[in-house]
């Protein structure tokens, strides 16, 4: 049996040529996903990758697993059907900021709300790549694109704030080129039971280059990023310019930390993934550059029964209470009568 042999990253490469632009952040994400897969303890045939339409949504073609490249924006709904039908499968949705946050926003909302046990990876490059560079719902105000020659006037949406507004039980943010962090985030997402929503900051080299350079670049990210760790205070910044985040009455602010100063004593908040309220994670998700560092890591991870588990439980309990369905009995239930020959 093929599975007796240890499977490796390579086993997850399909025979299709990978067709992203040179320099696209998607390559790194693909490589890291393929690297993590063999560690998850799931047989290869039990993985399903589902996507919509977009550069990012070509992802399933390159994974040697079951895959479904569907239509624009609907991947979360198709994944819901797959997971409800076969709860034992490990179902991953790959979507883009256009696919997921624009046309597909509603499905994302409701899938997250229902807490279907799937992983949703949103590749956020803040642009429509596949259709050649229009602004997306995550693009910054003023962005000049083909469809906004005088600058976009749409306020961007913040995917993690959106997900928390939808009641997400797991939200995280990571970066295309930060391999260890990305891998760890994928592992955590997989572990989580319920919808794991992961925003991956991704570079579109062709239409929106260096949008995330502040957190991609190893140097810049020390001051511009903030990796959050469960139980650790919200601190960031290079030696001599260390800062922390304080949250008073729900309102975050930056505190400058003196050398060696205890952040917690200085009023810096301690990161906790498991608060019952989503309000803390939301405060974190609302931190934006340049006033604040861009946080990455797992913002929230709480356990609630997942949708497909509850659904299966209803089936099981109905069977316990009423026995396996008997069609003959159903058809003859209620008032019937017999006409003799």
């Amino acid at each position, binding site marked *: 049996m093929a*599975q007796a042999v240890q499977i490796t990253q390579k086993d997850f490469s399909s025979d299709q040529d990978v067709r992203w632009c040179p320099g696209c952040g998607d390559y790194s994400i693909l490589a890291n996903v393929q690297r993590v897969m063999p560690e998850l303890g799931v047989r290869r045939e039990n*993985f399903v990758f589902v996507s919509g339409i977009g550069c990012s949504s070509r992802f399933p073609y390159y994974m040697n697993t079951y895959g479904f490249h569907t239509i624009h924006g609907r991947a979360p709904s198709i994944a819901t059907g797959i997971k409800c039908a076969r709860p034992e499968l490990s179902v991953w949705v790959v979507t883009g900021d256009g696919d997921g946050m624009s046309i597909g926003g*509603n499905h994302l909302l*409701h899938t997250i709300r229902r807490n279907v046990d799937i992983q949703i990876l949103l590749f956020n490059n803040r642009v429509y790549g596949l259709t050649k560079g229009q602004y997306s719902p995550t693009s910054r105000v003023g962005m000049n694109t083909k469809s906004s020659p005088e600058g976009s006037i749409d306020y961007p949406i913040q995917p993690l704030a959106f997900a928390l507004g939808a009641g997400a039980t797991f939200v995280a943010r990571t970066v295309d080129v930060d391999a260890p962090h990305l891998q760890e985030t994928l592992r955590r997402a997989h572990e989580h039971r319920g919808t794991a929503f992961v925003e991956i900051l991704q570079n579109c080299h062709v239409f929106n280059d260096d949008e995330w350079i502040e957190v991609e670049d190893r140097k810049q990210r020390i001051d511009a990023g903030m990796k959050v760790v469960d139980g650790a205070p919200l601190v960031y910044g290079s030696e001599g310019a260390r800062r922390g985040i304080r949250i008073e009455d729900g309102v975050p602010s930056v505190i400058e930390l003196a050398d060696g100063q205890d952040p917690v004593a200085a009023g810096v908040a301690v990161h906790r993934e498991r608060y019952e309220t989503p309000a803390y994670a939301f405060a974190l998700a609302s931190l934006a550059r340049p006033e604040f560092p861009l946080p990455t890591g797992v913002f929230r991870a709480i356990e609630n029964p997942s949708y497909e588990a509850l659904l299966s439980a209803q089936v099981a309990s109905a069977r316990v209470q009423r026995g396996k369905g008997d069609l003959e009995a159903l*058809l003859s239930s209620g*008032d019937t009568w017999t006409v003799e020959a």
Partner: protein
Amino acid sequence: MPEKPTEEIESVAIRFTGDSGDGMQLTGTKFTESTALAGNDLATLPDYPAEIRAPTGTLAGVSGFQIHFSSHDIRTPADHPDVLVSFNPAALRANVEDVRPGGMVILNIDAFTEKALTRAGYTEDPLPALRDRFQLVEIPFTKLNRAALADLDLRSRDADRSKNFFALGMLYWLYNRPMEPTLRWLEGKFKGDVLEANARVLKAGHAFGETTETLPRSFVIPRAKIAPGHYRNITGNTALAWGIVAASQVFDQEVFLGAYPITPASEVLHEVSRYRHFGVKTFQAEDEIAAISSAIGASFAGSLGVCTTSGPGLVLKQEALGLAIMAELPLVVVNVQRAGPSTGMPTKVEQADLLNALYGRNSDSPVPVIAAATAGDCFGTTLEAFRLAVKYMTPVVMLSDSYLANSAEPWQIPDVASLGQERAPFATDPESFQPYSRDPETLARPWATPGTAGLEHRIGGLAKQDGTGNVSYDAKNNAHMHALRHEKVARIANEIPPTEVLGPDRGELLVVGWGSTQGAILSACIEAREDGQNVSNIHLRYLNPLPPDLGEVLARFDKVLVPELNLGQLSLLIRSQFLIDAKSLSKVEGQPFLVEELRAEIDAMLGLET
């Protein structure tokens, strides 16, 4: 008091009418059950007010339920009721003109106050004029009912709620129906005072009928000659829901229903939701797009995916349906049609989504389309849709409509064994597996579901290479795949049974119908033939592909008439495919055909004056 005489009659149609709150649907349903058990053939038609909840006493709030029963075959709820029961002036006003001349009109005369007459839009008392045209039976139901309950401790508002059961009791006497089924139902449903009150007034109404001099005789309708078997009453929506549940048994496979509520399809979701123990999962999605998408996902994963909707919902599903066609996945899309366009008249009937089912997607994307003809037929047609979907690896559109959805008819309960036992041919063997290889007969591709080791593959909505299923922009391959999808659907024609011509198998006029108009068309054609007219009729279950012998059948007749509750959709298909001058008779009033309307058109086509 001597027993009153009885009179034997062949058939009668009764319409119960009142305010939405008067319980007319329940009254009609109970009368129907009794009638079925009395052994008559029957057909029913409820007529709800639209989605709106109208102010009491107004025309907009009138609710009706018609039942037609007989000692012979019955196919429609009848064009014109013989008996109208009206609980208020608005109900009278909205319905009395439909009553057959000289018919019986039973009124709750307590409700005919001046205020109520004005509310119904009457400017003067209509009863004097009606007395000349109909047999008016004026009964103080409210008073009689209160009297029957006088000793119970009920507020009069609560007491009044049961006046419909008083009337029901009276009608049971009038038509010699058994009271037991209703009493049994009451016992199962209520307890204590409420049970007592309802049972008591039902009996009181019956006794009143026996006693009152207003009703000089009762009527007997002998049992109908009905094929022997086990029967029940069923509405189209229930039959459809049970067809979905039955699929889980016939295929021994989990069913997944994704749906978003919409009139008149919602009850299918409600009904199916009750049967989780059959291994049927229901999912109330956030919209129709998510509903079909989830069903597609479930099918991909190896369940029997199905979604149920009505017109506007079907439109929203079309993009995803195109994906299912490209991905060649089995899927049943049920459309319980309603009157449009746009939101239109959501509670009223039309059969106007046929062309949408066929052409509602971008590009040429063929999908089989089948339609149910009667309430009971919704069961078998649903199962047939699943069978085709699985056998040909294709989505199938199944059409019902709001008339079938809500009307009830006696239904011979099928023997479960006769439904067959099918098994989806899941692919399991990695040896030379290709996701788009073909079954030589059906052209189906293999159903290879996640979890099967060695069959990992990727599908999607981009043009695919035959065999490998890889993305392909090759020109010839694309033409080949277009032809293949077309041919796959076309091959279903091989299984369509020969078209059954009722009446002479060649002649002057052929009436061609589909869907819920079957009863009316059949009645009209049978009557016409009984009157010596040269008219035959056929009724199509398969709309795409059309039956292979259809052209040949059509060619045997001088003229072809296609009656439809739309502006001529099947007619367009027939004209285009067979180049015959099929005439369309269309009705788009939100109401089914009357038999007399069809007869008039048949007469006209046969050159007869009417």
